[in-house]
């Protein structure tokens, strides 16, 4: 009942004309971002971060939620019609979606993708409502050792799950923590690594780092690539209706994808991307016709598309309930909240219920808008791909430069943007993932304060800091989750013949 009352408050906030406008604008921008290859939801959210300064905090959150969901919707369009994934979470959709389009079922694939996304988005929002409320209630009992445990475990998971080399991810995470140490020490007021530059006293700002690593670096990478556009498969309105058989075959995968996606979304790392692969593999295993996968199986579209949307809802849970972002996109959302002087966490629901529940209600509305927006306008969105890259990229650079300058009118921020952009480009080229760096930069200062407060509280007794009921449980669950695959892998290993080579 309490949840329903809060949800009503949320709808009251979300249904104001201004917030409805931002939900629509976010959904629209997100769809465009999803359609355009290269600039993903993260990059676009980072680029648009400075624009939210002129918005109310609730409107900013609603805008970002729309972008995130919209990108997931938009990504499927180019995957199905062009075999080009607009962003990483749509790669799996290409496999069967494009095959369906080649067989003249592109319209049905688009509709199934949109409806599955809508179902998953709605289910994950329900999950978010209940899970975030429960977790936030529990989090009110958290002290510094618990928050340190969550931060540490989150970063460890991120290093393991971010893909690529673990050592490179670890390096990126440590560099993020190092950058988080710059500025005035929170407890004693000592200046650290400021080199006499007053503007660095507040630390390295999140915005230029995120915009540099995800905006400028992305532009530099895109500038090297060609400008070829594949053959766009045309879809007419009458082709959008799936057959009854296709609908029936999609129900199970969409529901399973929703559940899988939501729970994977709770984990640190690129959860929307991981959830699509897990869903695809699960559907292939469960299917009575696995041979159809890769040849245009509708389950291969419904499951992953549901999963990546549900993962978005899941990713909001730790952010809203604990104030800890587990994905880079959520780190940008934290950045936006901080720009408005709001610290996310368990008290957010108590102190700013209209913001928390307004965002949740807007997600329902945004999902509905996306469903209506995406299907009739599918050909319009595909036309966006025709904007020449040579024009688009300089305009993105301009937005990054002016956007960063507009926040603090700081030249230092512009230098940070440029340097991190160059560093991000080089690091990406060499296979270093920038996501752990950005997340560590956000989580690092919180972790440091929690760690030092804990050590002072327990007079340096680390064991007392770790072996507390909640903190200990967090470490235990993390250790089991990290070690279980290793142990299971070792147990499954069959003895090799002495001279045999695999």
């Amino acid at each position, binding site marked *: 009942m309490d949840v329903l009352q809060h949800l009503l408050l949320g709808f009251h906030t979300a249904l104001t004309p201004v917030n409805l406008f931002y939900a629509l604008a976010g959904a629209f921008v997100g769809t465009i971002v999803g359609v355009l290859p290269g600039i993903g939801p993260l990059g676009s959210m980072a680029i648009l971060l400075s624009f939210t300064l002129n918005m109310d905090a609730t409107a900013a959150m609603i805008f970002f939620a729309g972008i995130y969901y919209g990108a997931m919707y938009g990504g499927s369009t180019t995957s199905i019609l062009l075999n080009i994934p607009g962003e990483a979470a749509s790669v799996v959709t290409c496999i069967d979606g494009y095959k369906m389009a080649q067989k003249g079922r592109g319209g049905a694939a688009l509709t199934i993708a949109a409806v599955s996304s809508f179902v998953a988005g709605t289910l994950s929002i329900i999950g978010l409502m209940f899970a975030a409320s429960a977790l936030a209630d529990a989090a009110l009992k958290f002290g510094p050792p618990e928050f340190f445990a969550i931060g540490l475990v989150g970063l460890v998971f991120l290093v393991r799950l971010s893909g690529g080399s673990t050592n490179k991810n670890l*390096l990126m995470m440590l560099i993020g923590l190092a950058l988080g140490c710059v500025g005035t020490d929170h407890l004693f007021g000592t200046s650290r690594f400021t080199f006499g530059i007053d503007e660095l006293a507040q630390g390295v700002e999140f915005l230029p780092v995120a915009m540099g690593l995800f905006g400028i670096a992305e532009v530099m990478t895109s500038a090297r690539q060609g400008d070829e556009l594949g053959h766009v498969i045309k879809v007419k309105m009458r082709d959008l209706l799936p057959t009854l058989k296709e609908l029936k075959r999609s129900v199970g995968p969409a529901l399973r994808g929703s559940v899988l996606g939501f729970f994977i979304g709770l984990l640190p790392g690129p959860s929307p991307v991981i959830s699509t692969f897990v869903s695809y593999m699960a559907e292939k295993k469960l299917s009575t016709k696995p041979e159809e996968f890769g040849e245009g199986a509708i389950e291969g579209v419904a499951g992953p598309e549901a999963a990546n949307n549900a993962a978005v809802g899941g990713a909001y849970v730790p952010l809203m309930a604990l104030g800890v972002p587990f994905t880079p996109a959520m780190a940008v959302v934290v950045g936006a909240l901080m720009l408005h002087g709001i610290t996310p966490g368990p008290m957010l629901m108590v102190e700013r219920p209209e913001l928390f529940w307004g965002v949740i209600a807007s997600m329902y509305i945004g999902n509905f808008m996306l469903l209506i927006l995406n299907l009739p306008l599918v050909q319009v969105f595909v036309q966006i791909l025709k904007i020449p890259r040579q*024009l688009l990229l300089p305009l993105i650079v*301009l937005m990054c430069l002016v956007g960063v300058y507009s926040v603090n009118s700081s030249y230092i921020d512009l230098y940070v943007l440029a340097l991190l952009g160059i560093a991000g480009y080089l690091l990406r080229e060499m296979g270093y993932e920038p996501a752990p760096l950005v997340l560590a930069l956000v989580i690092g200062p919180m972790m440091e304060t929690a760690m030092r407060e804990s050590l002072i509280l327990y007079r340096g007794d680390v064991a007392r800091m770790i072996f507390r009921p909640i903190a200990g449980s967090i470490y235990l669950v993390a250790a089991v989750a990290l070690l279980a695959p290793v142990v299971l892998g070792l147990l499954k290993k069959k003895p090799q013949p002495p001279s045999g080579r695999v």
Partner: protein
Amino acid sequence: MKERFVALGIFVFSLIFLAGALALKVGTMAQPDAGFMPAAVGASLLVAAAYNLVQRFRQPVAVNQGNAGGLALAPSGIAAATLVYPVLLSFLNYLTSTFIVLAALLLLLRFKSPLVGVLTALAATLASFFFFGKLLNVVLPSGALEDAILAL
């Protein structure tokens, strides 16, 4: 080769960071001071960077497969433009510096003809000035040119 260069850069960064951290008051486990976290992070970073460096130097050097034709210089050009922009901004104010950087980028990326590139840069600069300066009320570095345009 580039991979080794990046690994070396990270190693040098970690050395400098640890040296800076140790110059701060580290404190004790019971009373951690301002340098405690930086020292812990710096030491871990140095170990991870050293391991990474050794790994990169043990790997055979990858042969450069060549770049995407004429656009190979584009990343360097974009890097230079973003680095130069704050310098230009402090001397030439918003309109001139933004126009120069934007025109340079459009020419570098070969957007249509040079004339179209320059005209597009001019239009985009003016549009961004009105959008940020007028609509969003961002305080942009202004001089006589900006004041004259705003007065129009």
